[in-house]
Every structure is written in C-alpha cells, then in structure tokens.
C-alpha cells in the first residue's frame, strides 16, 4: 500500500475524522476506564480461601473442582488470585457478614467482561472488546457458565438459529452431522469481521484452511475466485449444490453469456451419421440446449483456476477445461 496516494490519505483522514467526531460528542460523558462492571466490590476485605467459601456455598465450590477455573494456577494469570476470590474478590467481609453487597457479584445488570478479561486477556480472548459480540452489548455470561461445566457453542443458536437452520439445507458444511462446530470457523472473541479465523487476512484465508487445493496461485486464473469466495459460495447452507449462492448455469450467466452453440437446434433423429460415424442424439432438437445450459462446470471443471492450458489456441488456453 502506498500511503502517499491521495485516495489512501483521504480515506484514512475521513475514517479518523469520523472517529474524532464521535468521540468529541461523547467527551462530556467520559468515564475512567476499568471502573465499570462488577458491583459491590469491597476494597478493604482480605482473601480467605475457597475452604471458607465452601462453608456456605459447598455445592458451588464442589462443582468447580476439576473444572478449568478450579484447576487454574496463579502463575498462569500473572500472579492474580485464583479460585472463588479470583473473580469475586477478597471475601473476608462477605464471610463475616454474609451480605452479598460486600463482595463482587455478577447478575443481570452487571457486566462480567471486565473481570473475566483481567485473566483472559492473556488467554486468547484479548480482542474481545472490539469483537462484534462485545459491541452488541453481550457479556461473557451470556454464553459461558462459570460454576458448572457447559458447552458454550450450544448457546450460538440462541441468537443465530437462522444459521443453524441453514445447515438443514441440502448443501452444507457437516455441522449438523457433528463433524464441525461453529468454532471450526469462528472465534467469537475475535475482532475480525464476522469473527472468522482468517489470521488477520481476507475472509478467503479461512476457506483455504481446509480447501488448499483451490487456493493457487494458478497460471490461469478465474477472476471472481481471486476476488472473493462468497461471490459464488455461501458457507452455511444452500439449496444449490456445492454451497453455491445460485444454481448453475444462472450463477455463471451473471457474468458470462451462453455459448453460441446453445442456440443450435439439434437433429430430430436419435442417431446421425457424420463423416461415416453414427453419432448419438438422444435428446432430439433440444440436445444442444441440454448440453450447454445444464451445468457449466460439467466441462469447465477447473473453475477455481488451473496450471494447465486448455486446447484452444485462439482461446489462449484460458478456458479452465483441463
């Protein structure tokens, strides 16, 4: 990228200006970072240990044992406290008074993210604040259950039932067969567009994780393939075969015209002698239309690109037939 290009500079300036305008409008409502989130934090209490918590919350503490939050060690999270008080804060005041307001709690109106991110910023969820889910106002506890074992992916369909339903369509990735999950392609904590695992690159990079054979680079290219996989494909489910957005040949006809051969009338005879050789003509007069307007990729099989030339000299070998 050439940063001195006028269009680039203008775009960057425009984006920065938009951001500045938004911030200027909200400056009066500034809030120091990190102060939101947990309710009832007690700063004068001391740590008492999980055994004290279990005195009243035996079932909860017992359920935590063996789970990841019950196993985690302080050194993993830069020396922070682990166990019950790792999230709820020092518990001496609460243990003495049993008053919920004397300890950090998480409820319907209290965001847990700021507490979770104290540790999870170093555990792979560091992009959460800029993720689509966070910007939608979702909190960690929307999908995660901390005290009991849970499968967070089971909560995807709470909001994305339409996507889950897409996997029922004829052509689909094998999610409903249990061979893939939402997390196979998505990292919901990521700031990438669509929360897809694209390694900070174009979304096509996700596709190439499993479909390397169509990545290239090829000698003979098909321009929409180089542009964006989603011009032709839809990833969750489709009526058309091969996860195509539109069935062939309509898909191809959006950019290309039919072979002129499609307009030919074939013979009415079931067999025709050409040059002394009997040639089959099973579809009668409609035969050429049957051949040229059913599915372009019956012949153009290397539709994603090829390193081998097709036969035609005037076509320069670009027909993606070989």
């Amino acid at each position, binding site marked *: *990228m*050439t940063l001195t290009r006028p*269009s680039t500079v203008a775009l960057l300036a425009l984006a920065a200006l938009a951001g500045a305008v938004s911030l200027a409008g909200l400056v009066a409502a500034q809030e120091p*970072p*990190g102060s*939101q989130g947990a309710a009832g934090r007690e700063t004068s209490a001391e740590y008492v240990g999980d055994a004290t918590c279990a005195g009243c919350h035996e079932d909860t503490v017992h359920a935590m044992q063996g789970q990841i939050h*019950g*196993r*985690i*060690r302080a*050194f993993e999270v830069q020396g922070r406290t*682990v166990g019950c008080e790792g999230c709820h804060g020092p518990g001496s005041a609460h243990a003495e008074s049993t008053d919920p307001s004397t300890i950090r709690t998480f409820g319907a109106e209290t965001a847990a993210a700021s507490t979770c991110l104290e540790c999870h*910023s*170093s555990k792979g969820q*560091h992009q959460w*604040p*800029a993720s689509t889910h966070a*910007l*939608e106002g979702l909190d960690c506890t929307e999908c995660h259950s901390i005290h009991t074992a849970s499968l967070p992916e089971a909560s995807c*369909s709470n*909001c994305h*039932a*339409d996507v*889950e*339903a*897409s996997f029922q*369509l004829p052509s689909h990735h094998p999610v409903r067969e249990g061979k893939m999950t939402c997390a196979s392609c998505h990292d919901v904590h990521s700031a990438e567009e669509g929360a897809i695992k694209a390694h*900070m*690159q174009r979304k096509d990079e996700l596709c190439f994780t499993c479909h390397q054979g169509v990545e290239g*680079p*090829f000698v*003979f*290219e098909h321009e929409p393939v180089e*542009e964006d996989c989603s011009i032709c494909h839809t990833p969750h489910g489709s009526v058309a075969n091969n996860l195509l957005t*539109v069935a*062939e040949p*309509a*898909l191809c006809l959006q950019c*290309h*015209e*039919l072979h002129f*051969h499609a*307009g*030919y*009338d074939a013979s009415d005879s079931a067999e025709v002698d*050409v*040059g002394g050789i009997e*040639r*089959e*003509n*099973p*579809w009668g007069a409609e035969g050429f239309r049957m051949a*040229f307007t059913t*599915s372009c990729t019956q*012949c153009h099989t290397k539709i994603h690109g090829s390193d081998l030339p097709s*036969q035609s*000299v005037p076509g*320069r*070998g670009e027909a993606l037939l*070989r």
Partner: protein
Amino acid sequence: MRNTLRLLGLVAVGVALVALPAAPANAQETETETVTKGTVEVGAWDASDDGSPDLVTEYESNGGGPDVAVDVETRSEGGGFSLDARVRDDNDFDLGLDFEVGRMIRSHTSYTGLPHRLIHDDIDNLAAVTTHGRIVQETDLAPTAVYGIDYELLEHRTELQFPGAAGLTVGIGYRNQTREGQRQQVTLSHCDSCHAYSQTRPVDETTEDSLIDLQYAWSGGMVRGELSHREFDEGTPYITLLYDNALHPELRLPLFENRVQFDSAQGPLPVDLVPEITKDRFKLEASFIDVKGFWVNVGGVYTETRNDTTNISSEYTGSVLSAVRRFKKGWNVAWKARAYTIETDDVFVDTGEPLGIAGPQAGRTYQEVYGFDPDFLRQSSTNRDVLESKLTVSRKLGRKAGTIKLLWELENVDREYLAVAENGDTDTTENIFGISWWARPRKGLRVEAGLRHGEVDNPFLAVNDQVSTLQSTTVASPFDPRSAQYYEFQNARIGDGTALPESWNEVKLRGSYTFGTNNFSTSYRWWDGDNTGGDLTDWARTNQTLMATLWMAPTPKWSWYATAAWNDTELDLAASIPLFDG
C-alpha cells in the same frame, strides 16, 4: 522454514524439560483430591438409502454397526488427563485427548474422521448432433464407479508456561488434514467434436500445518508473535487423457491442427493437475488495555503462498488496528481498520502454436493465418491495495430496552491490473451504513432488528464479457478469410456482467423465546440489490429467507428439534436461457 519450526519446537520442549523440575510450588494452589470418572456408551447404527445421489446424506455412510463412546477423566493436584472418543466406523469417528502437568504443560489433541459421499454425474445430457455436423458427445470411462472421500483431521496444540516466567507462554501447534478416496473428473476434448470424458480421479491429499507462537502478557496488555508453515500435497498430482484426434467431423481430415495446442498426436497428457502448495506466515500482535482511556489492538501479518509446481508466489502484507472506548450511560465507540497488499507473480504464457497439417492452412500457425498472437503475460487479478474501516457507536439502553448500534463501514479496493469499469477504473469503493437493535423485553424473550444499506462505486464485474457486436459471416468454410474467428467475437463484446450490486439493502428480524427447557426461534432476512452500471446487462437479485426452529428437551438426556426453512430468490439477468434441465 519447516526445519526452523521443528528446531524451535524442540527448543521449547527442551526448555520445558529443564524448567519443570525447577518450577517452584505455587503457594495459592488449591488442594484437590484425585478424581477419576468415566462413562461408556454402547449403541448401534444402521443407515441405508435407495442408492440415488442424495445430498442430504452426503456426510453419512450406508451400512451399520456398533456405535461406541468412551469418556474417561482423571484429575489430581499434579495434573490431569481426559479422553473422549466416539467411533461408528473406520471413517466416522471423533477423538479428543487433553492432558496437563501442573498447569505448566497444557495439551489438547483432536482427531476426526468423516465420510463424504460424492455424486456420479452420468453426463448423459452431453450428447447432441446438429444437422450440419456439429457434435457434442460423452464417454464415461468408469460408468460404475462410486465416488467418495474419507476426510480426516488431526489437530494438536500444547502450551508451555512456567512460574519462573509466568507472563511468557509458548505454544506449539500441528494440524494434519487428509482426503483419501476418488472423485469424478470430466475433461473436454475438441475439435472433432465437443467430447466430454469422465474418469475416476484418485484423491490423496495431505495438508500439514506447523505452528509456534510466543506470547508475553502483563497487567497492561499482551504481545504475541506467531510463525507457521503449511505444506499441501496431492499424492496423485494428475491423471492423464488421450485427447481426440482433431479431425474435421465430416471430412475426417486434420484441418484444425493449428487451432488446438494439443490432441492425440501428443499421446496421453496430464489433466486435473493439483499443484504442491507451501505457505509461510508471520504474525505479530499487541493489545493494550488502557492507552489514554482506549483499549487498543494492533497487528501485522506477512504471508507467502507458493505454487511449487509452477514456482509462482503470492505475498500478503497487512496490518490491523482496533480501538475501543467505553463511556458513561452505556455508550461505546469502536473503530477498526485494516490495510493490506497482495502481490502475485506475473506469468508469461507461451501458448502452443502447432502448424496446420492439411487444408488451406497447412504449414502455417494460427497466428500466421489470422495475425492473432495467443501468447500473453498473465498479470494476476489478485494484486491489490485495500483499505477497510469500520466505525461502530452503540448504546446500552438497559436490559429490557436493549442495545442500539450504528455502524459505518468503508472498503476501498485498488486493483493493480483488473479493470472493473468501462473507463478502465480498477478501484472499488463500498460504504455500508447500518442500524440495529436487540433487547430482552421479558424473561426468556430476545428480539433483534437490523437494517443495512450499501453503496458500491465500481463493484466487481466482467467488463465487455457479453453481447458481441460482431455478426457471424455466412461463408462456405471456416477457413475462408472472411469467416469471423472466436477471438474476434470476444474482442467485439460490449456488455458487462456482474453478480454484485451497486446498491443494496438488507433487513434482518430475529426472535427467540425460551420457556422452561424449550426454545422457539424465528428469523426473517430480506436482501435486495441491483446493478445498473454495466453496459447493456442490468442485474438484480432479491432474496428472502424465513426460518423457524423449535427445540425441546423434556429430560436432561433427551432433546429433539424441528426446523422449517423457506427461501425465495429472484434473479434478474440479461441472459436468455432457452431450456435447461438442472
């Protein structure tokens, strides 16, 4: 690169072996007893179909047998181990293995296998003869072949983190994906006729990814670097085909030899070449929790992808920046930006130019007859500079009133070689404006509504790819100098074609209601876009999708769900489809 990764991996393991005995005990460890538990489930499965190509069961085998699942877990203060496995068939299984040692070594491995049944297209629609000797014909060289692929995926990740250097985490990853089986390959041979040959194409693909990453975290943020290497290889790089002899269909004379780069004279030739591909990637990323009140994430990535069969490389260089700030009264502002460049090698294509053998063009190449030079420099349509920006302003109104969000997205794609407009412009600019709202007005009920509008300047389209102005010349012979040639028809095209809109709108409505252990969800999406910017070829598409899902779990062990989906797509194209049987 691969040896470098191996060396780094060995160094990481070596560090682990040295550091483990010296790691001090953590004074805040929780005392836990050793817990071992497990379950074994034994069942059976049976599946059959009528043998017709059925996409609904493409990932499931026919047959039957035992269905066994084992889940074993043991945990103690020193570490733990868990294994879960489900096996239905030798190509249908899921295995997961986790172990940890004092939380200093944390390892996860998964191994999945699934069958993928493929259709055998009998290509019998590719048979037709005109009254003037033009022929389409098909030959299935393996008419009884059954096609399918067994897919397997092994993924492994180990993290090393030690009390002596607690902010530092070393990660080692490995991924091995294989596809084995056979699929159908159809190849077209002409000019005796348009002759489609169907063959069996063995599949023996292997993809290996090796990765090492290093992360340092502190109270104010983290920084992470990652190095990865991929190798993709197809064990059967290509199959072969003996092309037809390019004879005139009626005269049976080799009159077309200078119009085809190869035919039967060259013997069996490679077809369906799957190249060897390697990929190397380096990523560097940093997050800062508080930079003047902002949360900031910045990163860069460099990737080189090489086609080792043709020695063509493509390089991706990109950077990302995100900044988020929360304000009082539930306001949130986020800005994300990305800039990247893709550069792919040019390739000079030296098109084969055989000499004519018989007839009026004997002894001459196609170029010598018509003056058309078929050689060209392939300059990649992938090459581009791209800038993306996304600004989001949201406000949480309250749990029942919900959250409202405004967004503005901008993308500018500046292609180096590919024109997307009649005037030769290579730039595409898209602006998207959106507003959305979601809320939980009552317990168990979630509602969502969203509207987006996009405006695209110079969307991707095929310039002059349709509607030739050249009239076909009525002459006795295609060798007559007055006969119009294929490349002349192409050069005279004036119509543009596209599958992308200049302007589009999208409405999304979603609702979900949870009652007890049951859930009902419904969604509606309407998308409408059109493009009137091309010459002669207007394009428009409207898509509606309505879905409803009912999920019920009467007991903790038993649940069922039903889904209904309705999809309606209207596509307006300037194309005439006389008849098709699809």
